[in-house]
């Protein structure tokens, strides 16, 4: 990993989307053990995966991991904390007046 350069790597992954009444969730799992670090970007290739209501869809796909540069990783570690308020249940509406 360079100080300023980004690196690209490919990783096989499994995408699971559950659009069921009992559980609404969606996850990406890398099948080669790839680990994501602060500032990295992930792009799953292929068309959008849609699960019709009531179904769980699981697909094997290819993903590109765009590794953050050393500097960007450091920057994300330093500044990411400021966004922590996003974790609060009521803080999602950006509009001040609806």
């Amino acid at each position, binding site marked *: 990993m360079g100080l300023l350069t980004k690196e690209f790597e490919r990783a096989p992954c499994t995408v699971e*989307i559950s*659009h069921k009444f009992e559980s609404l*969730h969606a996850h990406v799992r890398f099948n080669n053990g790839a680990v994501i670090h602060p500032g990295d970007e992930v792009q799953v290739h292929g068309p*959008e995966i849609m699960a019709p209501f009531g179904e769980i869809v699981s697909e094997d796909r290819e993903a590109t991991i765009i590794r953050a540069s050393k500097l960007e990783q450091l920057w994300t570690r330093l500044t990411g*904390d400021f966004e922590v*308020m996003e974790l609060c249940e009521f803080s999602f*509406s950006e509009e001040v*007046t609806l």
Partner: protein
Amino acid sequence: MNKHTSDITDAEESLALQQAQSVADSDAATELAMQNTLLTPRFYTTDFDEMDRIDVTPVRAEWDDLIADMVADPNKGHFKKNEDWDHVDWDGMEPELKKEFLDFLISSCTAEFSGCVLYKEMKRRGSNSDITQLFQLMARDEARHAGFINDALREAGVAVNLGFLTQKKKYTYFRPKFIYYATYLSEKIGYARYITIFRHLEANPQHRFHPIFKWFEEWCGDEFRHGEAFALLMKTDPKLTRGFNVFWIKFFLTAVYGTMYVRDHQRPAFHKALGVDPDWYAHEVFTKTSKMTEQIFPITLDIEHPRWQRNLERLQKANVDMAGATGLKKIGAQVRAGMAFVALFTIPVKKHQAPASVRLEPVY
């Protein structure tokens, strides 16, 4: 700022987004008529090694009790529609109320969903079995809540789009302790918010304009247990609630209370329909939350201080002014918001001794 699902309120924008993403939904025919709302949770990383080093030995007995309770899953059968789910007249709903209530549901669904993504990531990346088990259980609850809200949205003709996974997404970073403070508070304040509405509607059922509120009592039990788990996690490391970290705790308390106050005041029609004065509601929720957080935090905010309410109102006003303004006016509003926050933050705190045993029971 990223475009958030809850930003999308008009059908045209949703449609444009839908086309842009060329949705290939197998259920397209039925879904087309629905307003399409793309869920856009954020993705996080943290110091997973640090989380793996957590040792729950000092709180083992309480920890095992709590986990056993979560494994037993008291709410397993709760999130089902039954005869209590009355018919909702979405078409007859006053447009302003409908808009605000949909925003409430969408933002709640996004929040539950994001919680699920965060917890699941921690579960997957960790190797400490106590911690991964906890996060797995919490992810289960959040996904269940999100599914339940999603169903209420479907009834209203709003389809949630989970296509975000194939979009490029960037992972940000939070320090573990910030996750503890923020999620602990978020879960506890979530409990206080749900139970306050539930009790109010129990006493004033004529204001219950949607059946989902009937589910809030058991629902908030999950929030309560999640909060308990974070309290125990913090108890394992006394440094988290000492020294300079007390400053961070004060910061999070002020920021979370302030944010809630501002956001709730954005939904006047929603609160009016519930028959709830948002100022009364905020005070009630802060009082309950403060009482609960005494279980682990060495300080609580002095919400009876004369500067408290006055500056919450200034913060809210500045926030409204900020939205419509540009240039100098916007900067002016930002400065006023900053000053209001500082005025809130500098109110002297109430100090107290944290009890030896952390665990609480939901009593409200």
